[in-house]
């Protein structure tokens, strides 16, 4: 019997939600690390019992936790994230140079082939790797050393490297995204990087089509088609069919093309999901209606999914790492809100129900499908 394990990071701890393949009844475990900000919790695709978690606090800094038993018990591992060499400066909000300073780990991406190898995306933006289960971390400095680095600047949430996508067909290819620098790709496992932002248009930067400076919120890929990328930008939902070399807008009939999350159906590479959010200053759903939008055509044509979701007086946000899919035959879709709800759909988005309603603000949602 298949099982599903949903890993939820919140402002005040981590939660592990488990169900059988029907996804009707859920057990809730947590809070783990009560009181700490849990930016991201993610399991290894090689060993489902191996889970990594980013734990941080404005008072006590950064910790990385590791579980070897599916989240029942945890142990702190290495938390030293030292930039390679002299970090230099990036741009501050007002355009002045600002020293690169480590603040937190936003995203942990376990390797597709080795449970002890895990990548970390941090703020201020840099790309780190551990090959010993998180005990020791080394920066892959070529990304930050890319010539554009001094021109990167923080988004409202900080200058965070928030998205890491590993190409299952090409071990050397990794995509990352940074707010507000843009998306980057390496084809040689991090030795060199190139910005992949051609086609993006951002009116909030002096040159709207600049090589870097775009506030990319999230990027998603279907593992069967690693050259096709879907992006939720600060504004605009975008698509690339050439591994990021060029992008085109697919916002189509969305009520607003601002948002944070984007994800792809586990079995239908042209079926994608977003949660439109009213921007720029409000950051809640339009008209107080929480609606997931699904496109079955790879973009441009979107349908609102509302069954089971609040359609009045709803003013939550859905943050960039807070949507995930399972890989059961009838694909499950999950997302968490800043209001503390985690919603699940066991039928690809047709109907939704909350697994939990009253958690702290949800920062991240990941799913493990356990056979």
């Amino acid at each position, binding site marked *: 019997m298949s099982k599903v394990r949903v890993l939820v990071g919140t402002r005040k701890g981590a939660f592990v939600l488990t169900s059988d393949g029907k996804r009707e009844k859920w057990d809730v475990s947590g809070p783990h690390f*009560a*009181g*700490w900000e849990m930016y991201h919790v993610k399991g290894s695709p090689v060993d489902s019992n191996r889970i990594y978690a980013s734990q941080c*606090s*404005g*008072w*006590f*800094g*950064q*910790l990385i936790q590791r579980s070897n038993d599916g989240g029942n018990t945890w142990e*702190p591992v290495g*938390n*030293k994230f*030292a930039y390679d060499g002299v970090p230099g400066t990036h741009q501050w909000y007002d355009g002045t140079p600002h020293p690169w300073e480590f603040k937190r780990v936003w995203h942990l991406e376990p390797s597709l082939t080795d449970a002890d190898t895990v990548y970390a995306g941090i703020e201020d933006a840099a790309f780190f790797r551990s090959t010993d289960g998180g005990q020791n971390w080394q920066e892959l400095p070529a990304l930050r050393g890319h010539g554009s680095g001094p021109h990167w600047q923080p988004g409202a949430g900080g200058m965070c490297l928030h998205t890491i996508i590993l190409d299952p067909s090409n071990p050397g290819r990794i995509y990352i995204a940074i707010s507000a620098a843009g998306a980057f790709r390496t084809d040689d496992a991090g030795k060199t990087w190139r910005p992949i932002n051609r086609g993006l248009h951002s009116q909030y930067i002096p040159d709207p089509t600049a090589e870097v400076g775009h506030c990319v919120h999230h990027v998603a890929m279907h593992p069967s088609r690693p050259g096709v990328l879907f992006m939720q930008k600060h504004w605009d939902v975008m698509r690339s069919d050439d591994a990021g070399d060029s992008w085109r807008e697919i916002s189509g009939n969305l009520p607003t093309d601002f948002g944070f999350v984007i994800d792809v159906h586990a079995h239908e590479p042209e079926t994608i999901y977003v949660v439109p959010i009213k921007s720029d200053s409000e950051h809640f759903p339009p008209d107080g209606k929480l609606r997931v939008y699904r496109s079955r055509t790879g973009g441009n044509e979107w349908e609102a999914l509302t069954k089971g979701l609040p359609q009045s007086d709803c003013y939550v946000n859905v943050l960039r790492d807070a949507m995930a899919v399972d890989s059961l035959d009838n694909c499950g879709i999950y997302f968490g809100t800043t209001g503390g709800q985690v919603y699940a759909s066991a039928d690809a988005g047709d109907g939704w129900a909350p697994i939990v309603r009253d958690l702290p603000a949800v920062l991240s949602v990941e799913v493990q499908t356990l056979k």
Partner: protein
Amino acid sequence: MIRVLLPAHLRNLAQAGPEVEIDVEEPVTQRRLLDALEAKYPMLRGTIRDHGTLKRRSFLRFFACAEDLSHESPDAPLPDAVASGKEPFIVIGAIAGG
């Protein structure tokens, strides 16, 4: 034996009680005390002082004997009452956001 009071989050992290006891070589200084604390509880490395600079994290303060020692030199001797174990060395989180 030196006594150290930890804030709740660090107590939980160290899986220790509210007060921990550590051996510190004389003369007892902040640096030696924190070195010994981190040696006994390695999971606390980076949570009280920065990994690289070894500076106190900015939202933490060090108190002892009703004095704020946060801005004392890390190599200055701590009060005799701390060195003798009569009074604890207190690591406390700054009140912020409430």
